[in-house]
């Protein structure tokens, strides 16, 4: 069933050189150490870990923002090694990214319509009228109105901006969408709306998600498979139920223990411990 696998990563490494000072020798930092995994078409892989564990570096490599130091990435049968081959328009149309901060990831001087059309302008030969139609369609698809086409990012709330960022990412009809903490900066109720939107889009367009998050409750809600990273290595990888019901690695256990529980039973236990 190798046809089913859309993303295939083998033995991926990324090192950064840290330049030395006058009296200090330079050193290398390995941000991602030999990561391998497969993602099935139409499924969601969640990548979990604390800051500095290499999860965002992984996202940068998957989306061709950064080249890998060694190892292979294959997306929909297309091998990605941008340090050797450069980036083709075909590669761009396979994978797109949504960032954490919807305030920082949209250019304040660009109208929303322009934001949405830019990927088409750069990567396809579509005429202007068609681009505009597609942008308007996409606005509707992510729950915004046609009149938002001519507005600037500052006129939108955080949740609406994240919708724009999602719309921009799916303009090219990518196969794979990398979501780097897409709901961390949002309020709880807005978070629920965006998660619903992502679920709808996945059904409609058959998208595959790599969902990077540190919020375990969100991961549990939407992931098919879960990968836990710790200091650049994968310490746990399995289906959602395997990982949540029976965590193997110490770090995963620590992570679960640290996650606040918002149910009456835990509160009762805490209050009892406090009274004692």
């Amino acid at each position, binding site marked *: 069933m190798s046809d089913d696998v859309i993303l295939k990563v083998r033995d991926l490494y990324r090192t950064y050189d840290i330049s030395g000072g006058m009296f200090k020798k330079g050193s290398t930092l390995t941000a991602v150490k030999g990561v391998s995994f497969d993602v099935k078409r139409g499924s969601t892989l969640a990548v979990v870990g604390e800051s500095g564990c290499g999860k965002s570096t992984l996202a940068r490599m998957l989306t061709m923002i950064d080249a890998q130091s060694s190892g292979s990435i294959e997306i929909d049968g297309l091998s990605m090694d941008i340090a050797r081959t450069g980036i083709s328009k075909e590669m761009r149309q396979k994978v797109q990214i949504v960032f954490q901060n919807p305030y920082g990831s949209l250019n304040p001087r660009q109208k929303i319509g322009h934001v949405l059309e830019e990927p088409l302008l750069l990567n396809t030969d579509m005429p202007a009228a068609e681009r505009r139609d597609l942008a308007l369609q996409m606005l509707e698809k992510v729950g915004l109105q046609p009149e938002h086409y001519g507005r600037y990012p500052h006129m939108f709330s955080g949740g609406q901006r994240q919708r724009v960022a999602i719309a921009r990412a799916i303009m090219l009809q990518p196969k794979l969408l990398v979501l780097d903490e897409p709901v961390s900066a949002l309020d*709880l109720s807005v978070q629920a709306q965006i998660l619903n939107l992502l679920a709808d889009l996945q059904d409609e367009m058959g998208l595959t998600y790599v969902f990077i998050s540190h919020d375990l409750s969100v991961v549990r809600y939407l992931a098919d498979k879960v990968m836990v990273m710790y200091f650049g290595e994968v310490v746990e990888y399995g289906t959602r139920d395997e990982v949540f019901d029976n965590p193997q690695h110490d770090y995963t256990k620590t992570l679960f223990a640290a996650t606040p529980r918002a149910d009456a039973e835990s509160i009762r236990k805490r209050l009892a411990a406090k009274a004692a």
Partner: protein
Amino acid sequence: MSLLEIRNLRIEFDTAKGPFRALDGVDYMVDAGEVLAIVGESGSGKSVAMLATMGLLPDSATITADKMDFEGTDLRTLSVRERRKVIGKDISMIFQEPIASLNPCFTVGFQLGETLKTHTSLRGRQVKDRVVELLTSVGIPDPEGRINAFPHQMSGGQCQRVMIAMAIACAPKLLIADEPTTALDVTIQKQILDLLVQLQQDSGMGLIMITHDMGVVAETADRVIVQYKGRKMEEADVLSLFESPQNPYTQALLSALPENATGDRLPTVSDFAEAGGF
């Protein structure tokens, strides 16, 4: 008598489009030894209420209240000079961004010492000893060496520990923590919350936790106030809030938690807004 008692607090900001009411007649009461959580989304007025209590709002804000007492002292009539004696000593505050709240140009030891020199009679060697003691009490490894560290040389979690050390330096009677763990990893969040609750129980001070995270509320609070768009929606003790929320907005918030999801879709607050009419 309550430690902090605020009645009918209203805050308005002058904007180009006329006055904007950020907070509309909310009461707050905190007793010594109690943990009050104020929960709400952005724009609910949860931070602005406590900034008003601290006297940290800009001049464009108009603050009115029927009562605003801290230990029987009327905070409304205090002069700036008198208020400065209370703020930072009896009431202190921790903010969300630990790295941004510390001055990057001075060592953490110096910044901690500054608080002590302002509010206590400690001088010289005594200040340094007390700083080491404080850093030890918030669990910073190698406190003697860390005195000379600059904020950028420490991690976010450690900076937040320094902020907490600074806030408890003068043994405050009331500590206000404004989203103290939002910028931190879950494992670090757990440590910081445990530390805050531990310090609160040891010293018997009042603690106000401002947060948008229901998990943080469940882990720390005794009593909870839920706010929405500048109004109080519900006030209850923590167990009854989670077991039987009365207000439709609270019910909406709790059911929007991904861990409470039952079906395929998460209910959103706007689904409830139509039905509940808030």
